[in-house]
């Protein structure tokens, strides 16, 4: 039997967040309330396991607060799970929040190098791709302007261009496409399909059923911090949409 090549393996991952009413952050408070700090626990992910084969595109769907973004942050190693393990094979490029890793005072061009270096690329690697990135972003001469003047659409164009054109093995996207115009969204779709054809792995969080249907191979439906349904995109998305009709989950 051939060994399956997994890009991402999430095994029994549980993640709890502490929610502090008011945080005991100073020494005095820590000593006074030691061990009985007033916090509630919120379970963001409850024993979630998910294997993603290399070359597949996975869509994560679910209502707000169901754990989609937490899962993505755990895969990208920003957060660490409380229990369970995560194994990620390959270079990850993630686009989780608009404007993360950008410096508002720098120009678009300088930010390409800044953002690229934050993803672990060397100057040499970036220099090779910088023209391509500028061209894809369609920012034209705005690339020489400080990005504090950019619109959110322009931010997204730049961020998406960097994240995809550095040729990551694994691309993680969290609901960022929504701010682009229709033409650019379509261009992003084509770019993702191109990455798919190159056997790259994509994990996408989106509320846009059409986008998910078009681009994803499989869909994972998270509900109340657990994987509720996983499998064929059409079946899962239809079920997800029906659940709203019947209001059985709300």
């Amino acid at each position: 039997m051939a060994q399956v090549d997994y890009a991402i393996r999430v095994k029994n991952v549980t993640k709890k967040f502490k929610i502090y009413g008011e945080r005991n952050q100073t020494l005095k408070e820590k000593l006074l309330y030691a061990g009985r700090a007033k916090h509630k626990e919120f379970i963001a992910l409850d024993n979630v396991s998910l294997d993603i084969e290399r070359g597949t595109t996975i869509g994560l769907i679910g209502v707000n607060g169901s754990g989609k973004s937490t899962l993505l942050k755990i895969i990208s190693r920003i957060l660490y799970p409380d229990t369970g393990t995560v194994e990620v094979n390959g270079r990850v490029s993630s686009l989780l929040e608009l404007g993360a890793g950008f410096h508002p005072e720098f120009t678009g061009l300088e930010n390409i190098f800044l953002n690229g270096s934050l993803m672990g690329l060397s100057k040499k690697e970036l220099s090779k791709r910088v023209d391509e990135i500028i061209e894809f972003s369609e920012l034209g001469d705005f690339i020489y302007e400080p990005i504090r003047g950019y619109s959110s659409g322009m931010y997204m164009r730049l961020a998406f261009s960097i994240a995809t054109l550095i040729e990551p093995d694994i691309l993680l996207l969290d609901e960022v496409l929504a701010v682009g115009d229709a033409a650019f969204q379509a261009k992003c779709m084509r770019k993702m399909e191109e990455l798919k054809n190159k056997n790259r792995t994509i994990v996408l969080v989106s509320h846009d059923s059409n986008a998910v249907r078009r681009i994803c191979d499989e869909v994972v439906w998270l509900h109340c911090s657990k994987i509720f349904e996983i499998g064929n995109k059409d079946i899962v998305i239809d079920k997800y949409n029906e659940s709203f009709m019947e209001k059985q989950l709300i």
Partner: protein
Amino acid sequence: MFSRIREVYDYRTMFWGLVTSDLRTRYKGSVLGFLWTFLNPLLMLLVYSAVFSLIMRSNIPHYAAFLFIGLLAWNLFSTSLSSASGVIVRQASLVKKIYFPREILPLAIVASSVINYIFSLAILIPFLILSGIYPSWSWCLLPLVLLFEAIATAGFALLFSSINVYLRDVEHVLNIFLMAWFYVTPVVYSLSMIPHKYAEFFKLNPITDFVVSFQGILYYHQPLRWKLFAYAVLFSLIILGIGWMIFNKLNRRFAEEV
């Protein structure tokens, strides 16, 4: 541990980006700008040497030169720590939103302080010569002492920067603590002025070893006191190990706590 080092190496472009931006922004917006890199230690020297040669009357010959050597060595340590201790919290927006080996943040600050130290040699060396202390072979040992002081500083920087995320008081307590630490380190006085019965106790302070080594090679033209320096080397490696280990443990919840 080796995989961590490998990863930090992979992020070297980001590391140098942070180092250069730290050096550039250190005195950004000030009229004199980069000149402060040289002016700062000179002005400090002026204050200390006024107090200790006019009022407190130190009997060390070439006192200003002696003081300057120790002051720069101390500054490397103390400015690194006071800046590094809050760095994870200051860079919260990065820590929360993207992945990168977080060690880079405090390590880049230490690296920029080391570079700053090297710049200030451009003042120190002419100053020593003007004071009548001429270069000798023992000066060649400077990079070695500097290297291990940097390693020890990096260890402390990792330690304090990670603890500060959970206990924000560290940053504030540290400044008082550093002031006290300065006076138990033989910078304004020499090791030989310490009463004999306390001398051993003062030698336990690892920063003493670095300061004394700098004074030894630059001021007294002595080769390194190997026993003392071996202790410093051992200490710096141990503190780096402990600092990195604790940093790695605490690192897991950084994104939630900052």
